[in-house]
């Protein structure tokens, strides 16, 4: 290696490194693929760092979830509801029409707190209004089963936050969320009230049986929705 070649290497290498470093600008951070997908009010999927969104599709379960808000609409996360199921015109069994009976109303009516009903609120109010609204293009909204709701429990949440991924499910409270499961006997101080309904506590993710008259939060779910398939 002669002196000119060495001169070229010794001066050219640092210069090339400096110019390359100056010209190489690091890429902005980007989101990683995730099983939760934000869905806007019309049912269209959004990128993970976009918003606002009204629903979340869980690609692991195929369920479409309501997202709570702080806009004083029917989806405001502060509203609470007593557990109530209206009487339905359907039948509990289709075995034989002669033995079938209509589904009776169950639970406690209008014992939660909200602004959007002239009386107080129950789960049937939120269901009726959300179906009418066709939130995220979907009208088959219902209460989730305990098993379904438990799929949202996120045990590694930050200090003091509810046990859910709050980046996708903001305005979630550290409290009980109703499920569709009911008929389990109440225990302890609630024993005299008979049966209650199941709720998932987003303090720690545990399942609890509480009286229908309790004011708890609600997150609705829809299966087989267009925006989640």
């Amino acid at each position, binding site marked *: 290696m002669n002196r000119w070649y060495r*001169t070229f290497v010794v001066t050219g290498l640092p210069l090339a490194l400096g110019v390359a*470093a100056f010209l190489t600008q690091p890429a902005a951070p980007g989101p990683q693929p995730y099983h939760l997908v934000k869905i806007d009010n019309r049912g269209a999927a959004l990128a*993970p760092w976009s918003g606002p969104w009204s629903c979340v599709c869980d690609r692991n379960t195929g369920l479409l979830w309501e997202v709570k808000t702080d806009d004083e609409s029917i989806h405001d996360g502060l509203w609470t509801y007593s557990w109530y199921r209206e009487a339905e015109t359907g039948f509990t069994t289709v075995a034989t029409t002669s033995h079938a009976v209509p589904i009776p109303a169950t639970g406690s009516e209008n014992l939660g707190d909200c602004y959007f009903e002239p009386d107080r609120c129950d789960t049937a109010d939120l269901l009726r209004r959300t179906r009418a609204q066709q939130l995220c293009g979907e009208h088959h909204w219902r209460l989730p089963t305990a098993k379904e709701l438990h799929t949202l429990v996120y045990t590694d949440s930050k200090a003091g936050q509810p046990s859910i*991924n709050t980046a996708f499910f903001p305005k979630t409270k550290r409290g009980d969320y109703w499920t569709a499961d009911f008929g389990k006997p109440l225990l302890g101080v609630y024993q005299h009230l008979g049966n209650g309904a199941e709720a998932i506590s987003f303090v720690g993710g545990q399942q609890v049986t509480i009286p229908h008259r309790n004011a708890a939060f609600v997150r609705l779910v829809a299966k087989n929705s267009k925006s989640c398939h």
Partner: protein
Amino acid sequence: MTPERKSLNWILLHSAAMLAVLCSLFTGLRIATLQRPLVAEFEELLPQGALHPLHFFSALTISLCALLYLIFRVRNASLKKRPLWCGWHRAIIRAGYPLLAGSIASGWLLFFIAGASARDIHFFCALGMGLYLLVHGGFYLIRWGRSALFHIVLPARLHLGITALAAVPLLAITWQLTSRQSHYPLEVANIPLSDHVHIDGNADEPQWQAARAITVYTDGGANFDHGATDVTLRALSNGTEFFLLARWRDRDKSLAHLPLLKTDNGWQVQQEGFHEFNEVRHYEDKFAVLLSPSCAFGAAGTAHLGRKPLSEKPANWHGKGYHYSTDGQLHDLWHWKAVRTNDMYLADDNFIGRADRPRAGERRYTAGYQQDGKESGAYVMNWQWYRRDGITPKRLPQSLEQLAALPGTGQGPWVIPWFDYRPYTDTADADIPVGSVLPSVMYNSNRFEGDRADVRARARWHQGYWTLEMARSLVTGSSLDVPIGDGICLWVSAFDRAQIAHTRHTRAIRLAFPQ
């Protein structure tokens, strides 16, 4: 022709100096990226992580090498007199002496006294040293090729001098002294439990005057004069609570926190860097106190510089770095905010722990910097979803009279109460004229409740100075708080309408409780 072979002592000294200068230069340039955007353009060449201890250790090594070389030159002064001009190599080496002396002197000046001029001198001497390394090493390589490398690693003889042997323990001792004994002591004055200290930002209680003050020069921030401000601190304790008084110079009282401006195209957040989480114009003033049982350099070892100091974790948007703990030690962080917490009479009680797991859906990853839990209460930003090109407010004034009473671009209430405003609707928005300005911060309760509300704080700005009083129980019982006692170290940072560009200081402030 080949260069003259060197002794083992020379080779050890030269190698140590060479490695230390390289280490010091690259770590120092990374530190300089915090306040010199031009250096940050070359960030791909610079190391990342906890670089402050490495920088100081290499500086100490350079200083010792220089001292040993000076002793060698003095002891051998009579052996060989060189002519004034003895070739380009010698001239280049001689040119390096003042640069090295300047780097060392300005570095120690920064460490013990600090000052904007010292930092500038240090920076330019460091650049000079970088150039010196290129020219000095380059000329040798050009002239002798690979044999120059053998020349600096293969000794002529294997005799090791007593000075070289003594250098290692000397380095160890001076490092221990520098890293463990260089803090500012802050005496905590005892006051009776019956004395009341009102946390009101006035600091007019006689107890404060009786407490001994220390002043710490902090720099590296945005917007302050030369990015620097002196912070004067006093501390009190009544055996149950700890009180801290901080006073710092800030020419302007900055309360216009990300204001919302109505334009022809809708509402926009006024920002200059907020999109990258590094707002430096439309932001409130802030002050932060880090408390830790550790007194290690770099904010108790939590400061990790660079865009991606953790290879398995997300990069940050601004390239400055993250705070996190690598050993599981929890560090307390009190974060007073002139708009968001001052009217709550609180500082945001936060902590620095291990780097958090990345969370899908969160655009900003903050590593170890996190908030204590709260039961309720919060400030809320008045946008449904932040977008750089436009937002929709969550709430609007009830009337034009209410809108007219808002501060606009002047000084006024930059916090609005949630329940005095109404939810956004297109109809309500149509009544608001283009050019209107709304505050972005809303309180939906008057304060945090729970663990996050452990630190009472209130500040007042008067004639170019903020005066901030803070108080917290010595022991809160929370696993996310550091119990305060003798030997706990503090770091303080002031923010002048800046989101993350805070001032900093090198040496820890160590609390000295009366025995």
